[in-house]
């Protein structure tokens, strides 16, 4: 193995320098700023992207159904995860992106729900709490470490990411799906919250949630959605890894443009 590499500026670099404590100390100074900038950038990006593509499903508990929420959410999250993962893996071999995306989303979401939804607007947090996806991020990153392959991660990790989104959140949600009789009508606790806590511009019909249909598979909505979400997640993650690769490949041109 050669111990010398050429940098872009054609300056010779001896890899043994990495063992030099003085150089190492110098490099360490960059770590914390990079970590903070990276996490902040990931947090802002995912917050904006997720709010625009799947916001309402995560804002209100009466939107988190068995059919659309478990499908829309992984698709939305894996778009950015795929894009970021390629660069960070290709440049640093650090399997942190999926966890960072989900962790930063959780932190930023709690800040937003507390201040925007609870303090400023007055909604109870029990109605607007965020879902959690950190477990899915860890699974995806851990799969990447164990397979060391983006392709295998998109197949096996992608399936888990989509399929486990519902069971991961069920301990948070289940209490809100208990039945209530209200004025002679069957409602879940979440439906009742959606009715009682007035949202002027979010009428009942606006919810994109499961409706009764003739095309069912023995009424098994949750497992079927999980399988389909896993299948779709594989392709979304794989597809956006490719997008990440494409961006990475043209990074120089993009830098010039910027």
């Amino acid at each position, binding site marked *: 193995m050669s111990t010398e590499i050429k940098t872009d500026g054609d300056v010779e670099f001896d890899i043994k320098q990495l063992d030099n404590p003085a150089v190492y100390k110098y490099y360490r100074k960059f770590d914390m700023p990079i*970590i903070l900038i990276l996490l902040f950038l990931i947090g802002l990006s995912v917050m904006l992207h997720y709010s625009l593509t799947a916001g309402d499903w995560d804002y209100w508990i009466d939107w988190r159904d068995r059919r659309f929420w478990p499908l829309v959410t992984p698709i939305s999250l894996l778009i950015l995860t795929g894009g970021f993962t390629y660069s960070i893996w290709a440049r640093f*071999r650090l399997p942190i992106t999926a966890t960072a995306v989900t962790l930063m989303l959780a932190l930023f979401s709690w800040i937003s729900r507390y201040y925007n939804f609870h303090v400023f607007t007055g909604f109870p947090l029990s109605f607007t709490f965020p879902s959690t996806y950190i477990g899915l991020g*860890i699974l995806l990153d851990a799969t990447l470490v164990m397979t060391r392959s983006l392709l295998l991660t998109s197949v096996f990790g992608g399936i888990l990411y989509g399929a486990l989104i519902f069971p991961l959140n069920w301990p948070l949600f289940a*209490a809100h799906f*208990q*039945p*209530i009789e209200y004025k002679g*009508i069957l409602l879940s606790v979440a439906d009742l919250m959606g009715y009682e806590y007035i949202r*002027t511009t979010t009428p009942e019909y606006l919810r994109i949630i499961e409706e009764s249909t003739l095309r069912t598979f023995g009424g098994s909505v949750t497992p079927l959605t999980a399988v389909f979400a896993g299948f779709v997640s594989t392709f979304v993650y794989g597809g956006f890894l490719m997008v990440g690769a494409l961006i990475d490949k043209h990074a120089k041109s993009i830098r010039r443009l910027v």
Partner: protein
Amino acid sequence: MFNKLLERAGVWFVLPLIVAMFSAEVLAHGERAQLASMRMRTMHWFDFQVSATTVKVGDIVTMRGTFSPSEHWPEQLPNISDTGFLNVGVPGPAFIRIDSSVNGVPMIRSTAFHAGKVYEYEVVLRARLPGRYHLHPLINVKDAGTLVGKGAWLEVVAAEDGQPFVNNATTMLGDVIDLETHGLQNIINWHLVWIVMGVAWLVFWLARKQLFIPRFILVRHLKEDANSLITKKDFVVAGIFYVVTLGIILGGYLWAENKYPITIPLQTGKVVVEAPDIPTGGLDINVDSAQYKLAGRSLTIQTTMANNSEHPLHLAEFMTANIRFLNSDVALSTAYEDEEMVSMDGLTASVNVIAPGQTVEVELVAEDALWEKYRMTGMIHDPDSRFAGVLFYYDDEGNRYFQELGGPILPRFFD
């Protein structure tokens, strides 16, 4: 120096005062923002009542009234006969909605409303947050937007005991839950578990001696062998995280299934509301022409009316876009205390009473500065110059009838 300070202080004092003076108007009447012709031709709201205008947190307020979708509903708008929802216009959940109904049908879900029908609504609210609010009935129309009814100001003061607002409900399993905090501690606990897991994963990968720059150099140097940066320890730790994560997910799911064995999916689906036709009382009205005089701020409608009933009919009121023009010569329509958007003598009719069997040409003039105040003069700028409104009239026994008038409208600019 002192004068300048005084001057600046004056500006800082006067400016907020001016803002405050006008902000009340702005806050109250967001409904003015919609095009005049859209307000006239979509929904007619009337008979609005609110049970109290000053309440304490926890008190009940009932809002009721009537609405009728316009038969002149613009073709280009998605129609209310598809899907609509009775809602409340208030800034945030200052109130909770305890009950709402239209013609006696609970309005928890969406429904369809039909032109030319009469719908009586009732919304029961419980005050939740102290403040001063302008309360409106609303109809959200799928794919079209929101139609705002006439509203009223409500003052909500803090409860005397100062206790936090409680919103109890009983599940079908007999548990009494407070919707304000239901399941919240459990949710926070689960989030903390996952945040700790996520932070642990990131710390394991980021708390390293050789991080970004050394790894970047090594990856470039190692090329195809860059995967060798993932050590055996990394592999083992990732495997542990993998198994623990799967274990927590499975354990959490089983815990939830055990704790909440009976759950249901979110409920949805439309309901049907039966509604009577508009009571026209045997009066046939044909609109011959209509003009809006800009300078006079008046709408003049030329009509031919035929009374086919057995009673004389008294033309009492014209209403459009929530603005009421009352005929003081007839004085049968009344306004409630502090009612906004009412012109007490704004309607003039060339014939006030139509005798039984009589067919007569009637000129109706609705004239008031309210046209200007509520931005109705903007109708001359609308791309679809048509109007609609409701004419109310009474028989000798005091029975009220009404029907919708509408058609093309021409502006007059100079007289």
